[in-house]
């Protein structure tokens, strides 16, 4: 669609967030703020073993605990293989999960669930469930999973979609383009980097929680903290055995998700407990359960080999991935695919490519969607390898990126070769300001003046590093969003969207997109979102899709409402619609100057003449996924004697097309950068030899705090994406892809050592330095 260049009234302005006042005032807007009389408390019995067959479950003592109303376990619930990954249909993740199985596959796996009048009664009942286990050998690393004779984690006969269950491989890919082996062998220069990311946690403020109850018509309502209400409805219906038409899913405000709430983990359990008891049931994970039993980032080892000419132009990229999906394969294939699909097109000058890898099962917590979705792991290795190549060639790292990055009008075979669990979609880049991002970012950090200088300040040695990244804007051929826009009799508007604001500000952004088309202030557009009974379909908030996919649906609906408004006005003013324009809350004739306010038009259409509802529903399926681009620069200080790393400054220059709400876009970047700094310096889930996570809580799993945050300068570098609503692309994920490689490269600039295993703890830094003799 065409991008207009007229003065914009709503888009590009950092308006008050539509949910801001209620959040600031502490209104009861979150899932469990609704206090339903008579609600039971649901709790889950976790497995104490990493791998065990359940021999027997005796619930008699638990059921006798006063106040206990239901106990669920494998013996009394339907066995329906499914995936907890909340993805579009057909679901690309294997059906390797059942609600309660006869086998447990990680410490924390679901064994049973209880609903009781009080939390104390529920906990007492859990303690009184007698489970006899036949403990099996456990697989606690991806290497062990692939060893000859390794225990088979998924030996159940009814699982579907596992790539090779006998060898613990949940998913595998091998995508060759050209002849990468020959190109690497013949390249003027070849380099290699292998980078590893451990288990890490999303750590959203609000834990996973759900309230399940029956409405006055006997329909099941799930009020839940989710990123995917429509997928919740579809999956819960199937797993629990209910007609989807009997289920309503409501997503109130969410206290963060970062991908962890793209999983359907508590909802089917709460639904079944409510069904069994006929009572409302509230469930919430404790923080420890969030760590262990929700989802994590996929730990990965990524190897990148680059072959280049002497002038730095890449000839070959080989990327090999070993991903640990944990006990179940949620997002196993798609996260694995995204490691390549979101990284390799960035450097499209290389004609020879190979992307190959596996996602293997282990008896450890289940990995899933996490902001960046594989790209974060891929960029760590790719951008460290680019730094190694720059060093070997003696070319400035920024210049090396300039010589290789994709540009407007160009494509990459990877777009077509790798999609979400299937082939992708060919696409041409229509907007790209990465060159500008590189220039502006380098200027801001003082790249030319300070890089390679190793400034010393007592024991602190300063270095600069950089990295680039792209992401996507929705999933081609999968994502679809719809919006309904209704003009009310007073001339204001109601916007109904299935889109899911998980704290990102998308409700506000979608209102801005509509308001811009309708020429009204944003507060004239009331937004209702994420209620499967009342809002139209939307695949949900993931894959950086909402601004682009849902935004396009909103824009289309607004354009149709715009047309209807002009038609009503034309009739009233006795003018041709083509001579009218909608601006500043009124329709005005360019020819005669005659004017009709929106409230007059709403009133006329509702009550006076040719009565009708001015409204439109429109949808947008994602034909392509325009990537946002970003250049990341940082300055670190490394204490050469202790190995402590401080990030002193972080500059990110990002092209998200038009920033609909600049402050929200900057906020997305700042948050993602800080989360990425957490990956780089602090975050790592640790496990005992039993497979138990030993730091499942904030006491010993450290997130960067406000005091650890460096000065983060987020710079929005505009471009106009012609397929985006008002020129917009995505911004929510890309920021997390840069800190790991940029910080690693900066440590190298400071100390001359490459940190390739995250997080870069003082110990790893100091011992790497010692091992390198520096």
């Amino acid at each position, binding site marked *: 669609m065409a991008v207009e260049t007229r003065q914009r009234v709503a888009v590009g302005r950092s308006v008050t967030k539509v949910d801001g006042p209620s959040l600031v005032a502490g209104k009861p807007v979150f899932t469990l703020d609704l206090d339903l009389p008579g609600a039971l408390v649901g709790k889950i019995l976790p497995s104490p073993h990493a791998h065990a067959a359940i021999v027997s479950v005796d619930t008699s003592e638990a059921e006798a605990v006063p106040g206990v109303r239901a106990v669920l376990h494998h013996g009394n619930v339907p066995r329906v293989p499914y995936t907890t990954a909340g993805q579009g249909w057909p679901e690309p993740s294997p059906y390797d999960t059942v609600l309660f199985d006869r086998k447990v596959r990680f410490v924390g796996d679901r064994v049973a669930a209880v609903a009781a009048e009080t*939390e*104390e009664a529920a906990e007492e009942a859990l303690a009184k469930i007698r489970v006899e286990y036949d403990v099996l050998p456990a697989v606690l690393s991806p290497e062990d999973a692939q060893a000859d004779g390794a225990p088979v984690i998924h030996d159940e006969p009814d699982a579907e979609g596992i790539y090779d269950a006998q060898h613990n491989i949940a998913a595998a890919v091998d995508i060759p383009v050209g002849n990468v082996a020959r190109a690497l062998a013949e390249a003027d220069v070849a380099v290699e980097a292998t980078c590893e990311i451990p288990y890490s946690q999303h750590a959203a403020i609000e834990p996973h929680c759900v309230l399940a109850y029956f409405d006055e018509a006997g329909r099941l309502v799930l009020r839940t903290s989710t990123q995917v209400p429509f997928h919740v409805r579809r999956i819960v219906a199937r797993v629990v055995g209910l007609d989807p038409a009997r289920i309503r899913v409501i997503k109130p405000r969410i206290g963060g998700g970062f991908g962890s709430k793209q999983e359907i983990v508590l909802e089917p359990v709460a639904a079944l407990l409510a069904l069994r008891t006929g009572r409302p049931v509230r469930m919430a994970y*404790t923080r420890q359960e969030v760590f262990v039993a929700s989802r994590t980032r996929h730990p990965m080892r990524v190897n990148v080999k680059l072959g280049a000419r002497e002038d730095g132009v890449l000839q070959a990229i080989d990327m090999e991935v070993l991903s640990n999906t944990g006990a179940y394969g949620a997002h196993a294939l798609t996260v694995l695919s995204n490691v390549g699909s979101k990284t390799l097109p960035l450097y499209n000058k290389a004609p020879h490519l190979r992307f190959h890898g596996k996602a293997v099962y282990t008896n450890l917590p289940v990995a899933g969607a996490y902001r960046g979705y594989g790209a974060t792991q891929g960029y760590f290795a790719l951008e460290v390898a680019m730094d190694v190549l720059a060093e070997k060639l003696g070319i400035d790292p920024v210049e090396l990126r300039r010589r290789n990055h994709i540009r407007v009008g160009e494509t990459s075979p990877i777009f077509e070769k790798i999609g979400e669990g299937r082939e992708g979609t060919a696409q041409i880049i229509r907007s790209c300001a990465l060159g500008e991002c590189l220039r502006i970012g380098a200027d801001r950090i003082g790249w030319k003046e300070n890089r390679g200088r190793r400034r010393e300040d007592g024991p602190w040695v300063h270095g600069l590093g950089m990295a680039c990244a792209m992401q996507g804007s929705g999933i081609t051929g999968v994502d679809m969003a719809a919006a309904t826009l209704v003009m009310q009799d007073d001339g204001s508007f109601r916007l109904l969207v299935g889109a899911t604001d998980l704290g990102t500000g998308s409700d506000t952004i979608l209102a801005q997109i509509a308001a811009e088309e309708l020429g009204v202030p944003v507060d004239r557009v009331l937004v209702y979102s994420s209620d499967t009974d009342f809002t139209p379909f939307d695949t949900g908030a993931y894959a950086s899709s909402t601004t682009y996919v849902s935004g396009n649906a909103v824009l289309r609906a607004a354009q149709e409402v715009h047309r209807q408004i002009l038609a009503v006005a034309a009739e009233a003013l006795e003018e041709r619609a083509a001579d009218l324009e909608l601006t500043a809350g009124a329709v005005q004739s360019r020819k005669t100057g005659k004017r009709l306010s929106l409230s007059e038009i709403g009133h006329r259409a509702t009550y006076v003449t040719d009565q009708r509802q001015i409204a439109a529903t429109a949808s947008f399926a994602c034909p392509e996924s325009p990537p946002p681009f970003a250049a990341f620069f940082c300055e670190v200080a490394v204490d050469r*004697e*202790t*190995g*402590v790393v401080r990030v002193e400054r972080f500059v990110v220059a990002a092209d998200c097309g038009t920033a609909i709400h600049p402050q929200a876009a900057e906020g997305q970047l700042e948050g993602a950068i800080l989360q990425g700094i957490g990956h780089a*310096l*602090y975050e790592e889930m*640790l496990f005992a030899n039993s497979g138990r996570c*030993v*730091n499942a809580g904030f*006491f*010993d799993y*450290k*997130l*960067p*705090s406000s*005091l*650890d945050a460096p000065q983060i300068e987020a710079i929005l570098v505009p471009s106009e994406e012609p397929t985006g609503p008002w020129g917009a692309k995505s911004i929510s994920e890309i920021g997390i892809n840069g800190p790991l490689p940029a910080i690693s490269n900066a440590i190298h600039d400071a100390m001359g050592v490459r940190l390739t295993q995250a997080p870069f*703890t*003082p*110990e790893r830094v*100091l*011992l790497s330095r010692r091992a390198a003799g520096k």
Partner: protein
Amino acid sequence: MHGGRVRRFHFARDVEEALSLLAAYGSRGAVLAGGVDLLRSPRGDVEGLVDITRIGLSSVRETGGGVAIGATTTLSGVLESQAGHDYAGGILPEVLRAVASLPLRNMATLGGAVVSAHPWADIPTALVALGAEVRWQGEREGRSLVEELYRTPFRGLFRSAVVTEVRFPPWNGAFAYEKVGRTRYDIALLNACCGVGVEDGRIAWARVAVGARPTRGERLPWAEEALVGRVPGEPLWNEVRRLVEERIEVGEDRRASGEWRRTVAGVLVARAVARAARKASA
């Protein structure tokens, strides 16, 4: 988190009442001052909580160059007091600002820190280095150097006794504190609190304590001896650094290896001693 089995909450009016309530509950009672540890590790067996924050133990007094701090004084309370601020070259603010976060410093009490005595904590290392004395009231009044107390099975003592005060002696010199944590709000991966007095251009006395290694902070008498009588300066700091690295006993836990702790212990001691000497000389 829910409230466990706590049935009663008492505001004790004085130490005697607190002790009598504790005695009545036996092992099912617990003292509540800041409550940080009770929140962090809720005890399911506690039925009665005895709040001791209203019995007049929140105070900071200057005592002839030293300082006496009431057991229920919060860490923020110490930080805000002039006497706490001025003591021994400003060591208390230096240590206490490294403890956790501001909201926790507003809750946590000095007496609580003495009793909980976590091996990774900042305060015990400083108490040992500073020669702090703890006073308590149980069946009898008692007092002990914290350093000596920590060599005894002290936890049993405070099931039936209440810490009343911590006394810090005067020092003619200065102390400095060094800590490495993962984040600014983190517990210590390793910490060191060191003090020196400088007279006639030589070190007259030295105190060196290293904690979170991963055991609780203890003094290193051999490092102190190596400093006394010597001329402050880089050569000495380097010598001490090497000495500590060579002789210190360290272990590993999930947070850090012994190898890293050994190296960094020398670094932290050398830095703390050097800073203390600069402060003392100034």
